[in-house]
Every structure is written in structure tokens, then in C-alpha cells.
């Protein structure tokens, strides 16, 4: 008898509805997303230690439950960054970087204590640095989606 030399696939999946928290993480995020339509940024403040979460989080690292909605600014500071090289989404491209490198920055919005990632537009890779100031670039008509927060520009 011979062993088969082939790959066998068996179907599987991750049901997304199983990932909700008792404290309704999704409900919190939905409220913040809904406010984006009015170009408002809603963070959630912890009563125990004062940390402000954006996106909102159902529990704080101090184990209190953040419950105060606060409006935060659309300006912030770059904490870290990268830009794409030969790494394409599928893996390593055969030949060097294709097209314009995408600059991705980690930012902390003013009035928050959390990092979020964002694409920096209107800048060249050599202009980016840790500590640089940025402003979110709102779409003309925000749709209340995470993608509304996808871009920022140097301040």
C-alpha cells in the first residue's frame, strides 16, 4: 500500500457571534462608531484610574469598569510607524516594493491613553518620526465605520 502525497482540506469557520463579552464590547464600539457620523470621537473613561479608552473597552487594566463617555480630540501623536517594503499582503513580492509605500502609524489621540493604528497620508516615508503630531483626516461623509478612522495627516 502507498501513502498518498496530497493535501486534504476539511471545512471550518469561526462564528463571529461567539466573540461578544458579557459587558457588550460590541455595543460600546457601536456607540463610538455611530458618533463618527457627526465627526465626534467618543472615548470611555475609567472611574478607578482615569484612563481614557479609544476605542472603548468594557473593562480597565485596573479592573474597574469604564463608564463615562468623553469626547476626545482628532489630533494626536505618533508612537511608532512602519511603511511597506517588499512585503505584500500575500507574502514577499518577487521584485522590490510595488508602487508608493503605505505609511502606517501607531497614534495616541489627545485626551486618550490608548494606541490605535492609522494610515498617514500627505507624507513621505522620510518625514515620519516617533513623536510627530497628526490630525485624523475625516472622510467627507463619515459612514459610522472603523474605516472612517483609516487616515491621518501631519499636523
Amino acid at each position, binding site marked *: 500500500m502507498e501513502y498518498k502525497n496530497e493535501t486534504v482540506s476539511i471545512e471550518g469557520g469561526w462564528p463571529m457571534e461567539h466573540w461578544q463579552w458579557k459587558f457588550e*464590547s*460590541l455595543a460600546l464600539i457601536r456607540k463610538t462608531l455611530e458618533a463618527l457620523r457627526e465627526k465626534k470621537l467618543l472615548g470611555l473613561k475609567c472611574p478607578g484610574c482615569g484612563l481614557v479608552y479609544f476605542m*472603548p473597552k468594557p473593562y480597565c487594566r485596573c479592573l474597574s469598569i469604564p463608564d463615562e463617555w468623553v469626547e476626545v480630540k482628532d489630533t494626536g501623536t505618533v508612537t*511608532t510607524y*512602519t511603511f511597506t517594503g*517588499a512585503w505584500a499582503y500575500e507574502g*514577499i513580492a518577487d521584485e522590490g516594493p510595488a508602487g508608493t509605500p503605505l505609511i502606517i502609524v501607531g497614534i495616541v489621540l489627545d485626551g486618550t491613553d*490608548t494606541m490605535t*493604528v492609522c494610515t498617514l497620508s500627505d507624507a513621505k516615508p522620510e518625514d515620519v518620526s516617533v513623536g510627530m503630531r497628526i490630525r485624523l483626516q475625516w472622510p467627507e461623509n463619515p459612514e459610522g465605520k472603523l474605516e472612517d478612522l483609516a487616515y491621518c495627516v501631519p499636523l
Partner: protein
Amino acid sequence: MAKSEVAVAGVGLSKHVSKRRDVNIAELVWEAVSACYENAGLKPKDIDAFITGNMPAFEGVNLPEEWGAGHWGAYGKPLLRITTGGTTGGSVAHGGYYAVASGLYDTVLAIAFEKQSDGNSTAGLNTVAIADAAAQFALGVDPAFLAAFGGGAVGVAVYQASSYMKSSGCTTQHLDKVAALCRNNAALNPYSHLKQPGLTPEEVAKTVLLQHPIRFGHVCPATDGACAMLFTTGEKARRLVDKPAYVLSVASCSDEAAMVGIAGSGTTNVDPCTQESCKIAAARAYELAGIKDPRKEIDLAEPYAPFAHQMLMFYERLLLCDEGEAPAILDSGSMNLDGELPVCPSGGVISTNAIGASAMERVAECAQQIMGRCGERQVKKEVHKAVAHGWGGAVNLNVVAVLSDTPRR
């Protein structure tokens, strides 16, 4: 604090390459296990308990111990599987330590492995990222949108490298130097994967830029390999081998996940290079080991560094110098095999990364350097105390172990 003496009396490693098509998982692991039995002078009947671990889902099979246990000599024995992502091997070693230190078992075989070529590591990583991303998918976010921010397996590391380089003054030339140092050490290690004798920093600098600031030459390979370690009481270890390596302490610390935060909510871990949890774990491990000044007392370090900047970053976070000093210490030659505090003498994770085994192989290298069993890569200085480290989870879990040539007083 446990009072009992715990020692390593044997270490076994399989051959490490990118694709072991000649053996299956159980057989690959057996190479490490049988070598460990051999150099500790023991047989399976002498083992009281087994601890195993690998990265879940990377091979596409789970509960590997269910069909591996018999092959490794574990039938009829207590067996525990520990799996904590990149730190898995370190946690398995901690498990071996706990089992003996608790007084429950005298002789414990700890086994960690990965056979990456059997599965799809990207699919495996997705099972990790799902905790971060699930809420966003549930909200209808396009997975491609998230992938753009993640940047694949290099993802977290590039953000960490950028902020570390800013805060420490580490340059890309330092990254090139780290890669060259490690791959040259690996060339002297028969169990390493990427052996590049004579590799120069200039050659590393010419490799393709994957994602700023990380080049191809700054990144670990994907490896098939296994590691086994025998943990036993100090008394038994002294009977088994001439020079056991004593485990003085272990400590671990988990921090908040970094990057997008669990379930897409915010994370206050705003800078992936701070690694507070590493500093906390290191301080605890030194305290438990009775080490007052790690800079003077530690002779050798095996930080977990699949990416070049991490060797310097974790050297600092293991409290072996002030923050921002590591690049200059690298330049001084102190981290070389013949230096004052050799770092990654094994060649490090950047040269060999069988993920589940990697953090244990840090502990194994410290033990073997203390036991004087490292052949060509044996460091010049005498090693009295060494520190082994592992890093994993959503860039938030750090594990530290301190080993010594003499038992804790």
C-alpha cells in the same frame, strides 16, 4: 518560595531545518527526547512526569501529546501540556521547574517542539489574531483592511523596532550587526537552522526591505525542531552528571495586549517596545535567585529575539544595562562569544525558530553553557549565572529563568 534544589541534568535537541520530510512530529520529537535520555543516562521508566508544549494549530493538529505520548515514553505517567504562544517552550521549562520544586515529582521530562512545515503558520497565527480581530469582523470590517495594518508576521515587530530605535538610538547598522553576530554563532551550533559563517553586517544590509525598518536578514526562519530537558532534584542531578545546571528561579509576567487590543477595544499598552512585563519578570526572577546586581552577576544571556532589534531591546528589558545602552554595548564587542556578557551564543531565535521550542531552547543553551557542553560555541568566560528569556502572546507575555552552576544558598 520553594526551598528545594532544581537542576537540569540533560538536554536533547533534534536536527533543526526548515522541512523535516523524513520524520513525522512524534519521530522528530523523539530525536530530542532520546538524546536527552542518553546524555542524562536515564530510561523512560526513570521519568516521573512529562510536561509538553507546542504552538496550538501551527501543524494543523491539536492535542499532539495524545498520539506522541506513547512514542516519547509517557504512557502510564502524569502528563501536562502547556502552550503560551511564542513563550511556550519557556513556560514548559517553567512547568518542569514547578513540578520538581513543588516536591511532587523527582524527575520530569520537559518537551517542546514545532514542525512548522507540516501546517500553515499563517493560519495558525490567525487563530491567535482572531481574539483581537473578531469584534471588528463582527462589525463588518474587511479582513484585508486589518491585514494592511497588521503587515503579516512581521507586523508587530516593525512597530516595536521603530519605537525602540527612536528611544534607544539603535540604528539599522546595529540591526545588521546583531544579525551577523547571531548567524555566525549559529554556524558553530550543530543544532541551529540558519548557519551563515562569515556573514557580515554589510551583507545583511543588502537584503530586501520587508517592511520598514526590518530587512529580510533581520528576521528568523521558520524551522522544524524539538527540544527536551530533564529537570530533577539537585541531589539526583549530582548523581547523574558531573556538572548540573541549577535553576535558581523562574518568573513570568503578562501585560495588556498591544496593537488593536482584545476584541478591537483600546489598549493602554501604547508602545510595543516598553515591555514593562519583561522588566517586572526579570526583577522578580533576580530577586528569587538572590541576585542583587544582574549587570555584575549575570555571565550570559539568551534573550528571545526572532527580530534583530529584540536582542538589544530585551537585553535592556532584562535589566542588564540602562535603557538605550545596548547598541553601544553591542559595538564594544561585549556580546560576542569571547565578550564580557555573551548574548545569544546559540545563534538565537533569529537563526532558528521552531516556535514552540524556541523559548525552551534559550533555557537549554544557558544550561548547556553552564555544563560546558557547547563545543565550538562554548563561551570563553566561565559561566556561573545565566538568564534565559521568552516573549510571546500579543506582544505582552514575558518569561524569565535564571540558571547557575551552584545551587541557591
